[in-house]
């Protein structure tokens, strides 16, 4: 297959996924640019999570094209290979390694060789130590570095998971409902953190909290029934009659 020349980082075209006849994604097309932040909104069952599953290799689409950096076919790679390409994913409910310390969570995430024999003999390098310091500072968990991740508050776990994503040094971050269960202050801080990340990396954020989406101040894509309903600035999308009808409510 000759790679089509696409200027975009992530290119989805005509992706369809069916579960027992139910079309979770219905010829979905989406393109994300380098260092772009995009907010994905849409009602429950619109296909937001399935879309992330397709991008990260958890679900194979029935048809369609999914290309990363124009040449890597995401539909044939497994989760580990896709993660190595530089796509990181944060789950909807914060998923960290609860029995490991905060620091070890970051250590496991840090970009490094992933094979069993290499981890068996690996030693933490000075560079890794410095990276962990910087990350701890950035996600404001320096004081909690030796605590078990399971002991952190919900908001701290969300941030730890974002930190783990950053440790992977991905080119694209997929972030599922980062503001869920957070206080107003945490939500505002998270928006700021994500805006900061998006200066250098592409970020796709799935979110229901419209205040948060407004805080992000980025291009919005509204999904419905497995395909794109509307795309554009939040104001333009909010004004779209179909969006109001299926999602925002009158």
């Amino acid at each position, binding site marked *: 297959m000759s790679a089509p020349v696409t200027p975009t980082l992530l290119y989805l075209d005509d992706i369809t996924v069916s579960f027992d006849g139910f079309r979770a994604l219905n010829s979905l097309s989406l393109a994300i640019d380098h260092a772009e932040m995009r907010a994905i909104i849409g009602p429950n069952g619109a296909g937001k999570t399935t879309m992330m599953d397709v991008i990260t290799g958890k679900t194979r689409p029935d048809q369609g094209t999914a290309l990363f950096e124009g040449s890597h076919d995401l539909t044939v790679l*497994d989760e*580990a290979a896709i993660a190595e390409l530089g796509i*990181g994913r944060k789950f909807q409910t914060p998923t960290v390694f609860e*029995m*490991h310390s905060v620091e070890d969570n970051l250590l496991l995430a840090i970009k490094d060789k992933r*094979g069993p024999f290499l981890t068996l003999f690996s030693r933490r390098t000075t560079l890794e130590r410095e990276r962990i310091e910087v990350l701890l500072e950035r996600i404001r968990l320096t004081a909690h570095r030796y605590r078990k991740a399971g002991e952190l508050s919900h908001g701290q776990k969300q941030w730890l998971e974002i930190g*783990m994503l950053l440790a992977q040094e991905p080119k694209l971050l997929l972030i599922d409902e980062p503001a869920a269960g957070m206080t107003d202050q945490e939500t505002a801080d998270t928006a700021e953190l994500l805006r900061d990340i998006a200066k250098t990396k592409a970020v796709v954020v799935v979110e229901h909290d419209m205040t948060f989406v407004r805080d992000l101040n980025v291009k919005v894509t509204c999904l419905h029934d497995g395909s794109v309903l509307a795309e554009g600035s939040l104001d333009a999308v909010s004004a779209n009659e179909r969006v109001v009808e299926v999602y925002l409510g009158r």
Partner: protein
Amino acid sequence: MTTQSVLDKQSIVVLSLLAAVAVLVPVLNGLAVPGSALHLSDHLVPLLGKYICFALLALSVDLIWGYCGILSLGHGAFFALGGYAMGMYLMRQIGPRGVYAHPVLPDFMVFLNWKDLPWFWYGFDVFPFAMLMVLLVPGILAFIFGWLAFRSRVTGVYLSIITQAMTYALMLAFFRNNMGFGGNNGLTDFKDILGFPLQSASTRRVLFVLSVAALGAGYLLCRWLVGSKFGKVLVAVRDAESRTRFLGYRVEHYKLAVFTISAMLAGVAGALYVPQVGIINPSEFAPANSIELVIWVAVGGRGTLAGAILGALVVNAGKTWFTGALPEFWLFALGGLFIFVTLFTPRGILGAGQGLWERAKQMLGSKPSRSSFSGGGVVP
């Protein structure tokens, strides 16, 4: 530091106790005056040796179950295969001293009217080859089994069921006479190992010490594995498998590696067990055995390594006493123990003891230290 020191407080306690046992048992058996209170009678040495082998087997289960969440209900199979490899060596050492006095064929083959040694018995008269097989046969079976199961992402109770089916299938196969492993009688009537008579007290003492040494080495190996970044990935797989995948780790490779290592450890335990009990037969493949050894680990404290050793020793000592004193109640006692541990001390004897210790220390006013038994801990 990435790797917590292999020789932490827990390791030092475990290794010191093992060293003490390795010295005391042979001394009390060999040097104490028979009949005195200190003397350890001859039949107790192989019995204790058997417990030590079970402890190594329990350790191998704790490595995969406690640290990687792989609940194998068929680990007795790897133990039995290691035992059979050792048994085949011991059978070939009998030589012409068998009942039928055939120079090459073991008695059961003569009895079955076999004329030639089956090809898979070749080489087992050579000790180093047999020892290699002790590691390779369980290792290769575990590798193939694990490769098929983990690649297909069979996890949880489904994996437990197919490991159970594996050991059951092996049991049925080994019961058949024409498999060439002695059918339901198995392999027995062993005479000597490397020229030393198995019945002599001194050989038994040496076998005991070797078993303790193997347990100590196995413990250190496991400790090193779980303390490395590799071990941290195992715990990550146990607690959040898909997170680990999305971080870019090939979970199936990790599971396969640790499962294979664990099977080889179980094989070594089986190989040391056979010369001390003097027999290996297909009942070692019985599913109930594999389930029982999971109970040892649960009782001792899963995910601690030391707990697995403790659990195997305590439960088996209890079994010996019970089956002597109240034979018909043993299975009830075992079942009751399992329920008790699951309900009241989910972290096993070791976890419960550690909890009491921490509380006692707090009451005495000293600040709680970072636990040395926190190797993995377990989310119930």
